[in-house]
């Protein structure tokens, strides 16, 4: 090995080391998370449930020790279009009049944190990172325009309130608990009417009002067995499903007339 080549190797090695150190400084923390169950099956006796998310904030050796971490967990269910309608009094009766269409909004939406969001990050950061129910984008179609509106818009707040009433939207800023300064957990409650499909869980870690790192994981809710069979038959083979239901009605009626025959 010549002296020249040895020098070159040394310089490239040091360059690599520098990159690694820089990367380490940028990502001094890393999130490692796990969900208690990645696949929830909806069966005949399904009546809601709760998942548990566990996680740990891994610090690089030698990284500066921070006084405290903040966590925001956002769970988004399968997306759908929804219409919100408002009733008004017309000719003495209450009629649906005005309506807004919400495009591609999550069927389930939950925000969990370890303390109030105002304490975690500035209003500006909250908006930029879509933290909390008021900042998460809920796209509306207003005429020909698409976009979100101010959080206290009548339709937006009614939409969120109704979904909250069904347990499908929720925000709890005391749900994330730290077991040790770096080990945390939170429950993800799922109501009985939970939408079927893929769920995305976003975990964001903050310190001193700034986003340090984030990661995503997910789980899915599936109908299985009989429920799945009936639901997909109704959707994909409407005619056959209708005919079978009609036949079932005839059978039940016939059996009843035989069982309860008086003569």
């Amino acid at each position, binding site marked *: 090995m010549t002296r020249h080549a040895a020098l070159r190797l040394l310089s490239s090695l040091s360059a690599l080391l520098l990159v690694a150190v820089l990367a380490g400084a940028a990502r001094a923390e890393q999130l490692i998370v796990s969900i208690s169950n990645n696949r929830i099956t909806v069966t005949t006796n399904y009546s809601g449930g709760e998942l548990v998310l566990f996680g740990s904030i891994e610090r690089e050796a030698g990284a500066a020790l921070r006084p405290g971490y903040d966590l925001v967990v956002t769970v988004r269910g399968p997306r759908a279009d929804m219409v919100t309608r408002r009733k008004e009094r017309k000719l003495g009766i209450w009629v649906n009049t005005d309506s807004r269409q919400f495009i591609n909004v999550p069927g389930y939406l939950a925000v969990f944190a370890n303390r109030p969001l105002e304490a975690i990050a500035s209003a500006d950061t909250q908006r930029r990172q879509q933290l909390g129910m008021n900042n998460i984008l809920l796209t509306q179609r207003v005429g020909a325009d698409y976009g979100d509106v101010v959080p206290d818009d009548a339709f937006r707040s009614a939409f969120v309130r109704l979904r909250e009433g069904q347990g499908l939207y929720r925000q709890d800023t005391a749900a994330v608990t730290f077991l040790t300064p770096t080990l945390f957990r939170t429950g993800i409650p799922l109501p009985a009417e939970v939408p079927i499909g893929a769920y995305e869980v976003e975990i964001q870690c903050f310190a001193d009002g700034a986003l340090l790192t984030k990661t995503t994981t997910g789980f899915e809710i599936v109908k299985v067995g009989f429920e799945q069979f009936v639901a997909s038959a109704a959707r994909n083979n409407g005619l056959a499903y209708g005919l079978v*239901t009609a036949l079932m009605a005839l059978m039940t009626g*016939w059996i009843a*007339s035989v069982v309860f025959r008086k003569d």
Partner: protein
Amino acid sequence: MQLYLPIADLPVNVLLILMMGAAVGFISGMFGIGGGFLMTPLLIFTGISPAVAVASVTSHMAASSFSGALSYWRRRALDPLLALILLCGGVLGTLLGVWFFTLMRSIGQLDLMIALSYVALLTTVGGLMVWEGMRAIMRANRGQPPMVKRTGSRNWIHAMPFKIRFKRSKIYLSVIPVVAIGLLIGFIGAVMGVGGGFILVPILIYLLRVPTSTVIGTSMVLTLFTMLIATVLHAVTNHLVDAVLALILMIGGVTGAQFGARAGQRIRSEQLRLLLGLLILAVGVRFGIELGIRPDELFTIRETGVSG
């Protein structure tokens, strides 16, 4: 016992639904009606969406009217020809009804339309029945004989052309009003999730002078076919028929109907009519009050489709 309904997408208490089916079945057996006008509102009350309730009750009505029609058939207490001609209108009416149902659903006025038709129809029919029942009871109390049926009297309906003879019912009648009535009942049934027996029976008796011996059996045949068609059409166009829900209702309903029929035989017929009239009127008035008072929640949400 909780059970998850696959189409309604919510868990319900099976015993509660069975009891509701049995209670409505009892009433329907007692009065010789389908009871859809009670079943649909009850389901809506338990949290099932009006659209799924209407669509699922149609198959429940098919089951109960089939068991009823079979027993009337054995006693030769139905008029096949009259039923067939009513059905010609009924099929067309059902098609129109399901089309109208789908249209109203797409413009977001289905719930209002269901409520409005309940108010209009139930208060009218209920009010007339209460009035007629009270007069009959007052006559009976004064010791007068029940009103003699004016079989000989004729009205404008009997002046229409295309007359045919209905042998089993012993009437000679134009087919035009028969088809028109079938059309109306089919339409109402598909839109409101009712069999329509509680409207059809009085119309056949008072307007067409069909004898009471064949009227209920014939009405059940029409209900059976319109409800079967409505079930299939609702399943094809709106995918809203919950077969699991329907099966629970059917089992409760056909059982309750047997006990109701026995109880009904012990009550005098004019009292029975008054009771039924009061019941129909009460349901109609309740829907009316609901439309008039300010709802607790002015907003509603409906999913319009899964986006990619």
